[in-house]
């Protein structure tokens, strides 16, 4: 997640004043069009493949590596693989067989650490995104649809959390919690992450509630709940999905950043953030492979999610055709 959180308009959001036309979920033509367009977009296809692979690491790490999570030998630590270019620090130049990506600071196999590290990173990102979407969408719909004092209260609360700078807020909350379990990280990311989603959904709902089709539904005696669920939500779905895709990538990066700052996950948990944080100090002082490999994996994954979101937005944006 970018450290500069208060961005009124998310990079991937559809401007709220251009709602997706359609009357409820049955008219799925825009989704069909989008699917068609996406399947022919090479960037989207490649990115989804990357995401699939990473998700399979998270779900079934044993399929990819035979080594256990903490099978390490400190006597061969920090050793780059033999094919790795550059000068090796004396004492760390053992010729290792079977360690394609070398070993970590504690002498674990880098490759299997990356495989094992996918799970916490993905779990954090997916759960946080799901919770954020749930909270943000609910509050945004309610605030935008009802307006008035409900909107004022929700907007002011949003202001408090939006004004709290994301990174700083996360550091403060986690430091005060003094718990560094995966659940603490998830909780804090959700608490700080829901605001942007709320704002965008609220904007969409605000612009939709006076549209003709909503008026018509109201005239036909539909309840507020029904109008929100059947008419407003489906029309707000596109920006939500786009934002979610980008969020997954951002939260993977956020976990790594918080871990780097020492308030995220902690060993003996294995996550990308931990591998990067443990290795990065040594990496810039003569052991570059400790950073290069986990960082490539992290960046490629985050990039895939963001580009997927980009492609989704292009496909769902009626103006883009």
């Amino acid at each position, binding site marked *: 997640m*970018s*450290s*500069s*959180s*208060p*961005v*009124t*308009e998310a*990079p991937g959001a559809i401007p709220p004043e251009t709602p997706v036309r359609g009357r409820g979920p049955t008219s799925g033509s825009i989704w069909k069009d989008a699917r068609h367009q996406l399947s022919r977009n090479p960037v989207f296809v490649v990115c989804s493949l990357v995401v699939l692979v990473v998700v399979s690491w998270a779900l079934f790490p044993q399929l990819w590596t035979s080594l256990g999570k903490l099978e390490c030998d400190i006597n061969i630590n920090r050793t780059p693989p033999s094919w790795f270019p550059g000068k090796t620090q004396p004492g760390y130049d053992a010729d290792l067989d079977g360690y394609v990506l070398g070993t970590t600071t504690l002498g674990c196999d880098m490759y299997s650490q990356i495989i094992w590290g996918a799970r916490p990173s993905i779990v954090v990102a997916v759960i946080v995104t799901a919770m954020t979407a749930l909270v943000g969408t609910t509050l945004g719909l309610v605030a935008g649809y009802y307006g008035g004092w409900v909107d004022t209260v929700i907007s*002011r*609360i949003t*202001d*408090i959390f*939006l*004004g*709290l*700078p*994301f*990174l*700083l*807020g996360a*550091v*403060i*909350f986690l*430091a*005060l*919690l*003094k718990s560094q379990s995966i659940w603490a990280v998830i909780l804090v990311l959700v608490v700080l992450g829901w605001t942007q989603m709320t704002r965008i959904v609220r904007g969409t709902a605000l612009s939709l509630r006076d549209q003709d089709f909503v008026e018509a539904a109201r005239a036909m005696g539909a309840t507020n709940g029904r109008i929100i669920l059947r008419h407003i939500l489906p029309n707000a779905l596109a920006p939500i999905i786009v934002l979610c895709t980008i969020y997954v*990538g951002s939260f993977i*990066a956020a976990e*790594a*950043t918080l871990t*780097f*700052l020492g308030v995220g996950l902690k060993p003996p948990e294995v996550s990308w953030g931990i591998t*990067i944080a443990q290795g*990065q100090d040594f990496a*810039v002082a003569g052991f570059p492979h400790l*950073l290069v490999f986990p*960082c490539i994996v*992290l*960046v490629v994954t*985050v*990039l895939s999610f*963001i*580009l997927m979101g*980009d492609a989704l937005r292009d496909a769902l944006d009626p*103006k883009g055709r």
Partner: protein
Amino acid sequence: MGRYAVRRLLQFIPVLIGTLFLLHYLTTLSFQFNGNPVRALFGDRQPPPETIAALTRAFGLDDPCLSQPGNPCVGMFVERVGGYLRGDFGVDFNLQPVTDLITRAAPVTLRLTLLAIVFESVVGILAGVIAGLRKERFADNLVRISTVLVISVPIFVVGVLTQIIFGLYIGNWVRDRTESETMEAIFSISYQSDHPWASLIIPSMVLGATSLGIIARMTRTELIESLRSDYVRTARAKGLKPTRIVGIHALRNCLIPVVTLIGIDIGGLMAGALITEGIFNIPGIGGLVFRSVRTGETPIIMAVVPLLVLVYLIASLLVDLLYAVLDPRIRYE
């Protein structure tokens, strides 16, 4: 518009009090459940209880409600806010007034933020315009990929690599060839108090990098949008020069949301400086807060964070007002 501004200003009060209470409650809970941070000052040594008691008293952490887990300590909160109204923001663990710490750190962070904003807007808008004009061509793809890359590489990696490449390798090369102190300061590893602007240039680029990506992408989208619009088509039909079309008609309109984004970014940058300040040894606000959360110096957290929220609120109010000035379609009453 005046009434609108006053109403918005009045709405600051509940937001600020809400922020203060949130932080107060969090720090209180942290104290109640995790123990007295004063003890940790002594590290592995066990100080006598009266020493702990005296220090706790001096730091204003001796309220009995702090030993009742779950108690929100409303009395303490009222006292605190009362102190703020009198200008008393408490002391840190070295008994330095928090106001002193902030007045020392804020100017540095402000300079850094200002440079970052100049950097991200100039480079971001330029890159966005180039990409927008050359849509789907090489320049566009280059800008798109590099901006996404900047967003997805963790900032601490960007920061350290920049420091090593510019400060150490290029820096040593420069130092061997120039006598100019300013040049040396620009390529220095860390912040130099003798060169308060020059030595912040490279850190500000790291700080602005993330927002730069977002600004470039937004400029690009908006430009493409407005190039398709009717008024640009009209201008073309009238036979105006392409530079004039882009410069005056298209760009001016599409910059409004970009300016909004930059305005709101001020608050985010000031706090996002946390990592950048750490890497380049810049004694600013971010480092101050980071230190205070680690040591548990509540008064610093309680003073700095609402200050940042206030900066954010003022910035977003100004942006909203500016919006009304720039765009005649928007009216506040």
